[in-house]
């Protein structure tokens, strides 16, 4: 198995970037191996899901608002645990990585994001974010699935969406079943056994024979396409130096995403997730630790993309299914809430604070009132980054914040 060593690969790219060629060049080398990618369709979206309901108020902290300290006598973060953004807000002190991205002008913080009639059930709210539905709508298909179905001329390939995860997210659900999920791209595909049940044998017994055009022919051709598609994923993983996943991971596998991009995979949307943010108790330790992990992962991801010359092609979107209540509960934590900030990360985002921070005085029964609808952020990403008709994907027109440069 020929494996292009990472060092050798990086040496190659360093040579080319020193020749002053645009980062798009990497998109074109990928095109040499993959079906043609036109340069303006090379934009990649990475969606990062923080599962459990991340407490927005201890992530982007209204450090000069007395109400914050009144509501959280034990949980409020002290100055020594904060990284100042401006007079109104500061970042959780464990997010030094994210702070560096802020300083480099690569972080957009969208404040107070939620939706009308918020649901505080994990499942239901997550469903709403995945399907971009109203709170009283029940949609089966996801916003990304509908994008996969609608976008792209020609026949979109299954790996147009890749979730580096055990389960395919509901966000990927669509009529054509596009978008794959795999925890181990190096081995993605049909699993051979330990005997004579090899990939070659599998290919032989399913070889199309130019027959009828009936169900069997359809199945065989889909099998061939699936083999090609999964081979492309595996090849890109190997080219990009992605390692085999031997044990389950709890952190964000963004290094795998960087590797797949580096390996030239023709994917438009990647999806990763981490969980544990449901901090009803012990929030101080748990959330800080998780935010630190998240921040380090994302910063490392951006650095890797930068080194590979891919940073300008990628925008990363970060969300959680809801924020948490303003007041701390009796047990060192907070309960399910509503609005929270979203992040957009990358050299091509419009950096800075967007929207309005939700008021801590004018609450809705103890919860923040959202000042931005998450479907607006989706609209910005769909139109200004992925270049598609957002209203067609989302079913409605939403007000679009200017989040991309």
């Amino acid at each position, binding site marked *: 198995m020929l494996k292009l060593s990472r060092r050798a690969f990086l040496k190659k790219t360093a040579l080319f970037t020193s020749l002053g060629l645009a980062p798009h060049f990497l998109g074109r080398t990928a095109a040499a191996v993959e079906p043609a990618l036109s340069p303006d369709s090379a934009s990649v979206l990475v969606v990062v899901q923080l599962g459990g309901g991340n407490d927005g108020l201890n992530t982007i902290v209204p450090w000069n608002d007395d109400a914050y300290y009144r509501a959280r006598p034990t949980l409020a973060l002290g100055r020594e645990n904060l990284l100042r953004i401006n007079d109104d807000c500061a970042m959780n002190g464990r997010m030094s990585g994210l702070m560096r991205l802020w300083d480099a002008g690569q972080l957009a913080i969208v404040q107070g994001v939620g939706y009308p009639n918020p649901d505080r059930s994990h499942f239901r709210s997550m469903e709403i974010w995945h399907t971009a539905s109203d709170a009283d709508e029940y949609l089966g*298909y996801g916003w990304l699935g509908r994008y996969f179905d609608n976008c792209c001329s020609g026949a979109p390939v299954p790996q147009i969406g890749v979730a580096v995860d055990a389960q395919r997210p509901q966000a990927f659900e669509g009529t054509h*079943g596009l978008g794959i999920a795999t925890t181990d791209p190096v081995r993605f595909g049909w*699993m051979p*056994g330990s005997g*004579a*049940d090899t990939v070659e044998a599998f290919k032989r017994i399913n070889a199309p024979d130019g027959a009828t055009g009936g*169900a069997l022919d359809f199945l065989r051709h*889909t099998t061939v396409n699936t083999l090609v598609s999964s081979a492309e994923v595996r090849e890109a993983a190997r080219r990009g130096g992605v390692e085999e996943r031997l044990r389950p991971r709890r952190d964000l596998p963004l290094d795998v995403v960087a590797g797949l991009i580096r390996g030239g995979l023709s994917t438009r949307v990647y999806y990763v997730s981490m969980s544990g943010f449901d901090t009803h108790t012990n929030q101080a330790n748990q959330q800080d630790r998780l935010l630190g992990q998240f921040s380090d992962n994302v910063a490392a991801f951006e650095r890797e993309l930068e080194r590979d010359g891919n940073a300008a092609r990628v925008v990363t979107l970060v969300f959680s299914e809801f924020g948490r209540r303003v007041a701390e509960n009796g047990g060192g934590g907070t309960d*399910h809430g509503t609005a929270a900030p979203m992040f957009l990360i990358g050299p091509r985002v419009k950096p800075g604070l967007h929207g309005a921070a939700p008021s801590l005085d004018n609450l809705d029964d103890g919860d923040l009132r959202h000042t931005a609808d998450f479907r607006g952020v989706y609209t910005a990403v769909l139109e200004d980054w992925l270049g598609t008709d957002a209203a067609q994907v989302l079913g409605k027109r939403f007000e679009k914040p200017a989040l991309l440069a």
Partner: protein
Amino acid sequence: MAAVLDPISPAAWDRAKARHLLNRAGFGVPAERVSYLAGLGPEGAVSHLLEYESIDAQFVAPDFLPPPVRAIDIRFETAMLSEAERRLYLMHIQDRERDAVKQLQAWWLRRMHTTPRPLEEKLALFWHGHFATSAQKVRSAYQTYQLNHVFRLHASGNFRELTINVGKSPSMLHYLDNKSSKKGNPNENWARELLELFTLGKGNYTEDDIKNAARAFTGWTCNHERFLYREEWHDDGLKTFLGRTGPMDGWGVINVIFDQPVAARFITAKLWRYFAGTEPSAEVLDGLAETLRGNGYALKPMLRRLFLSDAFYQPSVVGAQIKSPVQFVLMLADDLGMANPPYDLLARAAADMGQNLFLPPNVKGWDGNRAWINANSLLQRYNLPARLAAARAREAAASMGEEAKELVKEHVKERLRDWPGDERRAWMEAFREADPLGKRDMLESIGIEPPVPDAEGIAAVFAGLGFQTAGECIDALAQRLLARPLRDDQRATLLAALGADRAEAPLTPESIRGGARRAVLHLFLSMAEYQLC
């Protein structure tokens, strides 16, 4: 000229036809059942499957459904709690319902798999996809089961009666919002889908018909788990619906609907597609729809004609339908020899393949056939057998008893006696580190059959086949697993997987090795042909 709906002649009835009938009228083709049906002749076989009421089917109704929760009870239960505690309680109730729906999925799969009335469940599944509601919106597991029961009760009964009972079920009243539809503010959702998706199909009614039908159905609501007709909500004014005028109510609208000839054609076409897997020809559709309508929408006469018809046994129909995910996982359990399959796991697998029981993606249900197949779902289908078999093998190997372990130690010592010391040590080291499957593979590599069979089921599958040569083994497997014949080149690949150089090589269920069994079965289950029934 033989008409396509003429019944198949008893002379043409054979095992292959019986297998085809059972494949479509049920969820699997166990050998004894196929033989039984083969011996009954076509009339007898169809009667056996269709007139199932006389067959005893003892199933315990689900006992895990959370009791219906009423708003007033919640207020009482949570009166003394704080706001936060009350929210937690409500969420707990929701979680309980969600878990119960998952259990219901496994309950139904088990019923589909083990029932002596396979056609009853196959029809219930059809109706579930046709009159689709989703537990995503109808969050009550009880109401979900209630509607499932209606489908079963009326599965092969009268389509008109079934439609009325579905319209009255709390699950449908909730899902399509009719339960809050009132005079002066009617909700059109149920009326629209009733006409478009459930009875007539697009192009056979107008928007005005929908509006008037919605007015007619005002008053059809429910009180917790029971249908309730609220006179005071009903708009009893004059309506014009499909050309008739009168102060119609819901029952009146249903009557007018079923007066339309197209009502018989619409559902007949869907049923043909479900059971035959092809588009009905004009002749087939005309004939079967005629039978349905002529019998006042009683389903049995039409279904009998369908299952006996020559058209149903044509080469374009036999072995040409893509198994639905539910069909696939249940037949796979049989083909892996699983005596007691993990139904919850199978339910999840079916969901991953696109068929989430009780949770269809929308009111259209599932499109089925080729729509089941995409890169994702195909890989799921191809990899599930290996995953399931590996899980069982891991269980079996991990539970190797002390005696067996001693036996293994002795044999290994003997086999490795002539190895150089450091190689032997390395092997033992690797063996200690290996997981149960790895241990199994390592033992086989030095010629020791693990004392615990890799997965009892697989060994039993082969034991039941009766073969004397490698070629006979392949043929017997093909007979059991596939609905279509093998190509010569496929046979050659499979022979090679057995480790045989020619078809005549002697081989019996006793002499075949575990590794060869696994490899050849894996390849069979990874064939495109295996996706067809």
